[in-house]
């Protein structure tokens, strides 16, 4: 269960909208089920009271929504940011993607969000209702069974390796601020690096060939904000799913990850939205890990205005031919 309750967020949102501080609120609303919350924009207190939801499935990172929302209409936009969302928020500000004056950011604490795929793996399909109590989720299914799972056991991958509970940007903070955490987020990347070339190829062939090229990873990514995207170009050669072979997925995923290299805050949205459960964060983390090793520790979005490693250089940089680990 989250430390901050849905009611307190609704109260805060209503208060700010009624006293005129903000004119719109970006929040979560119920989707078809309790676990597929949908991002939504609320324009008045009644709507908020009726539809606003915050629970263990409020994973969506709202930073990217600000780009479009701040360009519409008058007044400020209220946005609720979890600690990891504030990194994307800062990164977008660094890139001048939206007007800070038009945003009222409220930082909220986060206990980690649940991954519905893990819940389903634990209790099976046919879920009707999910409520949370203490550190447990209570799952009711359509056969009348009631199962309990610990939130800690069904945390999304990005939350298991949470990088920070500290907000890097906000106008107002609800609850308490946390600390930057030690994490083992590069463990899996290292595991892959220690495989042989053939094993790695087999691993990625298996993962990436599931890709259906829905572009959800691109659309959700707060670092992917180009208005004209290379993947929309019908002449790009990778604009649709190929039936013939696997080149397209490889090219798509290498380029997608490359385009956000050095700007990716490791928010993990790409893996969250992937309908095929491809571990896309492993591609992004490889870039982050390489950047840390080659050019020094860098966390995108930690400091507003910081210079991304790929638009910077030193005279002593590593030679590309030496960048790849030589196995003897």
């Amino acid at each position, binding site marked *: 269960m989250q430390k901050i309750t849905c009611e307190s967020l609704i109260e805060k949102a209503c208060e700010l909208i009624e006293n005129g501080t903000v004119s719109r609120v970006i929040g979560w609303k119920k989707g078809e089920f309790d676990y597929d919350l949908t991002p939504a924009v609320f324009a008045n207190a009644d709507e908020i009271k009726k539809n606003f939801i915050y629970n263990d499935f409020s994973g969506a990172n709202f930073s990217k929504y600000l780009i479009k929302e701040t360009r519409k209409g008058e007044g400020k936009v209220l946005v609720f940011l979890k600690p990891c969302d504030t990194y994307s928020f800062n990164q977008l500000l660094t890139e001048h993607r939206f007007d800070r004056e038009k945003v009222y950011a409220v930082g909220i604490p986060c206990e980690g969000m649940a991954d519905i795929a893990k819940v389903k793996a634990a209790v099976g399909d046919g879920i009707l209702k999910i409520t949370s109590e203490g550190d447990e989720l209570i799952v009711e299914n359509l056969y009348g069974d009631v199962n309990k799972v610990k939130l800690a056991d069904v945390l999304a991958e990005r939350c298991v390796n949470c990088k920070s509970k500290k907000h890097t940007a906000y106008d107002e903070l609800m609850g308490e601020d946390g600390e930057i955490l030690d994490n083992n987020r590069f463990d899996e990347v290292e595991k*892959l*690096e220690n495989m042989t*070339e*053939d*094993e*790695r*190829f*087999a*691993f*990625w*062939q298996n993962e990436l060939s599931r890709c259906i090229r829905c572009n959800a990873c691109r659309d959700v990514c707060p670092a992917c904000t180009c208005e004209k995207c*290379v993947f929309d170009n019908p002449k*790009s*050669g990778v604009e649709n799913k*190929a039936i*013939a*072979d696997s*080149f*397209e997925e*490889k*090219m798509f995923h*290498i*380029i997608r*990850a*490359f385009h956000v*290299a050095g700007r990716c805050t490791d928010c993990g949205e790409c893996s969250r939205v992937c309908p095929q459960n491809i571990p896309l964060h492993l*591609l992004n983390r*490889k*870039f982050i890990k*390489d*950047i840390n090793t*080659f*050019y020094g520790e860098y966390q995108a979005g930690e400091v507003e205005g910081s210079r991304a*490693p*790929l*638009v*910077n*250089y*030193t*005279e002593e*940089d*590593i*030679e*590309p*031919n030496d*960048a*790849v*680990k*030589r196995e003897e």
Partner: protein
Amino acid sequence: MQINNEFKPKIVAFCCNWCSYAGADLAGNNRLAYPECVNIIRVPCSCRVNPIFILRAFQRGADGVIICGCHPGDCHYTSGNYYTRRRMALLFSMLNYLGIEKERIRLEWVSAAEGAKFAATMNEFTEAVTALGENKRLEDLRCKK
């Protein structure tokens, strides 16, 4: 490409207009032989080489891709090759992470005065790619004849 049952690789070389492209010219003037399978593409700066170019070269049947630019500090545009160096370090590392053979892709600094180095680099690189054989891991069947 198989010719008389012998594997002949297809190599794409991206050469900077201000250094390696002139270096290739010098190699030719000096009658230094390098393999005919090397297809040179002239770019205004090694920094012009977008990662997509490299992947697309592989897609369209290249067995090896080599990028040649000015030595660090010698860039015609002051700093282009420094950016190339960072980008390519990450890209090469990523390609290898996906299981693509690391010998298929290389970056060399070749100046306009280094005709001999250009020829030697191409000979050596072609040899390494020939030893690897056909590019199977980044191929696009639609582009195969």
